[in-house]
């Protein structure tokens, strides 16, 4: 059985700055993997490289046996990677339900004329999309907010909606960019439960970036530590968190 994600020797420079260098990692199917490191270490850049926001200068990304290196963002999504953003990016002026339905875009289709002329395929598919989207909203306890405008939701709900939207694309791999940012300990605890639940319920492989050590050590099986764009340590959570260089990097921050 192949791994879910294999990254080999990934690198990119901005101007003269080497933002990510010789980055390699393997995420197994069903694994919950953490990518950690101090601010500016290049974690989000790695996400942007994986999802085609940036094109890597070097290296290769293979998703479930398929080479997706250098693909455009939309194609990467169709290949099976979904993500959330560090600074939440919802479709703020659209209703919550429509945010999730937008996520279903590539799985439930009808032609443009069918949509304009309200043909039977429109009605049938819209109904299925409504049901599927409501199902997802229920999982994230957002069904009561379905008709509210997404931009008006409180912070915690926005984070959850972003995950729901990502899952609507039926990904193989879910990337979470600092899901606990800005949350209090109670909310963080709930989020951890939810991530575990998503993983079980959707049989999902998850790669997450996180600052919150409690969250990382609580749920991740393996970690990669990034510092100044380079891998500092890699291995099981226990090993990595006791690694002397990692401790220095964090305490020295």
């Amino acid at each position, binding site marked *: 059985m192949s791994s879910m994600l294999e990254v080999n020797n990934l690198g990119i420079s*901005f101007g003269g700055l080497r933002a990510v260098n010789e980055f390699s990692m393997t995420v197994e199917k069903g694994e919950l993997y953490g990518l950690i490191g101090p601010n500016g270490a290049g974690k*989000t850049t790695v996400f942007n490289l994986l999802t085609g*926001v940036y094109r890597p200068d070097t290296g290769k990304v293979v998703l479930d046996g398929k080479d997706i290196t250098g693909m455009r963002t939309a194609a990467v999504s169709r290949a099976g990677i979904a993500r959330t953003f560090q600074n939440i990016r919802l479709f703020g002026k659209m209703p919550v339900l429509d945010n999730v339905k937008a996520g279903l875009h590539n799985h439930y289709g009808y032609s443009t004329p069918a949509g304009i002329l309200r043909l039977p395929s429109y009605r049938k598919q819209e109904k299925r999309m409504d049901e599927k989207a409501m199902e997802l909203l229920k999982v994230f306890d957002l069904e009561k907010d379905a008709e509210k405008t997404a931009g008006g939701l409180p912070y915690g709900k926005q984070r959850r909606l972003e995950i729901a939207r990502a899952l609507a694309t039926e990904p193989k791999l879910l990337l979470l960019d600092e899901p606990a940012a800005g949350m209090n300990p109670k909310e963080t605890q709930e989020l951890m439960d939810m991530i575990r639940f998503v993983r079980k319920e959707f049989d999902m492989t998850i790669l997450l970036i996180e600052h919150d050590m409690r969250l990382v050590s609580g749920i991740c099986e393996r970690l990669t530590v990034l510092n100044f764009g380079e891998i500092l340590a890699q291995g099981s959570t226990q090993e990595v968190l006791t690694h002397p260089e990692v401790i220095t990097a964090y305490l020295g921050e």
Partner: protein
Amino acid sequence: MSFLSYLLNGISLGSVYAIIALGYTMVYGIAKMLNFAHGDVIMVGAYVAFTAIMSAGFSSLPAVLLAILVCTVLGVVIETIAYRPLLEASSSLAVLITAIGVSYFLQNVVLLIFGANPKSFQSVVHFKGISLAGGALTISGETIVTILCGILVMVVLTTFIGHTKQGQAMLAVSEDKGAAQLMGINVNGTIALTFAIGSGLAAIAGVLLCSCYPVLTPYTGSMPGIKAFTAAVFGGIGSIPGAFLGGLILGVIEILAKAYISSQLSDAIVFAVLIIVLLVKPTGLLGKKTREKV
């Protein structure tokens, strides 16, 4: 020789565009707004100079100075009353439409005062041109003065921005308004100053434009305004050398296209060149490339 003379005319027209474009680009850089009323400030400047010379018997220089003064004040008034309330609005379209409202306003005030009949503008340049190569190439006084003014404006403006406190403040505000405020820069004052300078330049451009093309109507400013805006985008909007370069190139292209291709299609050619440049370099010739943060 005729090519050389076209080229000089082009550079002269380009200098006018450059002076207008400088105003556009400074305002855009600092307020992030497309000031569609800028062209009409040019027209107001020309009318002020026209009135001062024809009715009040001013000589050229005082008339020009008066035009600059009036336009500077006008620029600040427009900014304070019409634009400032909207600079923080949730949509940048709000201030754009307001600028169009201001443009209509200026045109119609002038229309009410002076009527729709074109006025024939008397050139403010009083010396005859020079004749070179035994009369094969004559350069008019207006052309020389316009080109010199263009260079002078560019030099003075660059020095001002590079070497004075206010100039540095402008750069800071255009870079990051919030940070500039925290640094103790008077943001509103700086924006007003930018409008003042831009509008003063517009007055100079108005007088020069009407000295070269002496027909003055309330709508005289709109097309040069749009073209100068094009020039600013062409050079990379927000960039001062870019506006200057863009203005010059645009003027030269326009005159050469008129001379060698078709006078009716010269505008289309100018706009086509703009489109091609933007497609190759989406932020203009000297524009800064920005990477969107994800």
